[in-house]
């Protein structure tokens, strides 16, 4: 028999490692053609950090995003990024990028002021160019700046870093601690169908909504939710190295027997919701959230199975065997 159930789950996802004192650095180089290379150490494993950090650089430099290329593979000269973990990159790295952009602007403005024999304060950086307000002679497009710099003794690289305050201990009495990271808020609503004779669970539909500060790139936010859901489905329903845990018998040795969900296992209906409440710790209010999109479906699936069958299953993954045993108990 097939039984359907629905449920909702809510999660708080701490991002930025609660201030474990992990820095990120960035550098931005002006190239002879007036475009820029953003140099970072951030590993982009598909989450889109290269894209959003280019967005932040373009915004901070007030130039078109096409004029910014990114290099996160600069090997032994790469700036440090402690890592793509703790959903920290969107919260921490943009600070380093903005600082690098400010540093580069200072250098270019100083160089232009020297060329024009004016005080640096008289030089404005805007609109992909530098100029002295009200003096038509003293204006250079960024292309002209790039060319000009080639003939000077300056290497135009701005650098920046961001070092969040190190971790503070919990108060032993109250458990309170200083919030130096940011928390994102997620919600999932799922509908499942449980086959009570085979224990198979079909996740029919999923709605996931996230409050994430600022959706720097709404498309990649949705893709993070899609990807996180796939990880969550595997976590909730299938992925297990030791099917007879704590017995080590039949430990999985190959991916052939390690079941990650396929596209066929994906729910037919997925809806995304994004809510933005700017976070004070982020640039433009941005904070991370993505890892939470893999955890939030799990408890909703478990609760929906309860709604469908009246049985609480408190172990994951809910393999067909686990489900059938629980239904029998």
């Amino acid at each position, binding site marked *: 028999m097939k039984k359907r159930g629905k449920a909702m789950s809510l999660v708080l996802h701490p991002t930025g490692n609660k201030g474990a004192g992990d820095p990120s650095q960035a550098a931005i180089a002006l190239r002879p053609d007036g475009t820029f290379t953003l140099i970072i150490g951030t590993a982009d494993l598909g989450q889109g950090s290269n894209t959003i950090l280019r967005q932040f650089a373009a915004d901070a430099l007030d130039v078109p995003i096409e004029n910014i290329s990114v290099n996160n593979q600069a090997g032994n000269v790469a700036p440090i990024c402690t890592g793509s973990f703790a959903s920290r990159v969107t919260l921490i790295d943009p600070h380093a990028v903005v600082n690098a952009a400010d540093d580069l602007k200072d250098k270019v403005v100083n160089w232009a002021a020297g060329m024009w024999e004016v005080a640096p304060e008289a030089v404005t950086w805007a609109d992909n160019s530098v100029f002295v307000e009200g003096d038509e002679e003293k204006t250079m497009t960024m292309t002209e700046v790039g060319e000009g710099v080639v003939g000077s003794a300056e290497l135009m690289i701005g650098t920046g870093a961001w070092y969040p305050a190190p971790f503070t201990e919990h108060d032993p009495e109250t458990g309170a601690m200083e919030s130096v990271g940011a928390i994102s808020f997620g919600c999932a609503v799922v509908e499942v169908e449980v086959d009570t*004779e*085979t224990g198979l669970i079909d996740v029919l539909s999923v709605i996931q909504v996230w409050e994430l500060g600022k959706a720097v790139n709404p498309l990649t936010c949705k893709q993070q939710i899609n990807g996180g859901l796939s990880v969550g489905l595997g976590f909730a329903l299938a992925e297990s190295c030791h099917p007879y845990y704590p017995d080590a018998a039949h430990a*999985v*040795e190959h991916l052939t027997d390690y079941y990650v969900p*396929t596209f066929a296992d994906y729910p037919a209906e997925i809806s995304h919701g994004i809510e933005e409440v700017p976070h004070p710790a982020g640039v433009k209010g941005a904070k991370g959230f993505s890892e939470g999109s893999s955890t939030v479906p799990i408890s909703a699936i478990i609760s929906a199975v309860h709604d469908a069958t009246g049985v609480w299953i408190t172990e994951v993954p809910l*393999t*067909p065997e686990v489900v*059938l045993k629980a239904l029998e108990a």
Partner: protein
Amino acid sequence: MENVGYFAPSDVGQALELLAEQGSKATVLAGGTDLVPAINYYSLWPENLIFIGALGLDYIKEEGGKLLIGSGATWTQILEDPLVAEKAPALAQAARQGGSVATRNAGTVGGNLANASPAADLTVILLALEAEVLLKSSAGKRTVALKDFFTGPGETVMNDDELLMEVQIPLPAGSAAFQKLGRRKAMTLSVVNAGVKLNLDGDTCSGACIALGAMAPTPLRCSAAEEMLVGKKLDAALIAECAAAAVAAGSPIDDQRASAWYRTKAGTAIVARALAQAAGIGG
């Protein structure tokens, strides 16, 4: 894999000569979807590979009251073939549920049978359809019913010098159905699978074949369960009783995919569903 000999004969005669010459030193290579994982996982080192993909064994045709499928026909061919859809739709149904597009494009029906996995999907429905296989060697040929073909996991009655040429399905192929239970909806070997064929006289069963996979060292025909149906009107109660009897013929084991307990429980449901589907009862 060093120093493995590779032969790609262009006709059946050559292939059979090579097999006769090399005997146990030769390993037949069809789609490679069972063989290559075996090489990678279990350090199987064939001495000589004989590729049989160029022998023209990928035909599907009707002849002499039988559906004849060349051993080189792929899962994709079978699931797309109009003749299969018309004469043995349950076979197409099984082919649709195997592996992924890539493995279905490469894997062959001959490989599925010769590999003799107790969990193989095409195998279990072919067993229910009372298929026979045509084996050839340079010395002659013989036909073996599938129910006599498998002797153990990975083992068949085929001799080293024999090639599986063709699968022969007697027509009409009754009212048949295939059910598979895997660990996800695609790219999964069967935890348990079932094929059934019913001959129906109105609503009375005049003959039944029930085949079960992943429940014993070989794919299984469940004759005691089959007999329970003959001469009876099929209803839900009889189907449930028969499914339990079919599964009782098995001797399932615990493995990475499921426990024996689970195979028995869920297997009963799978057989019942296949029977109900073939009998046209219920949803």
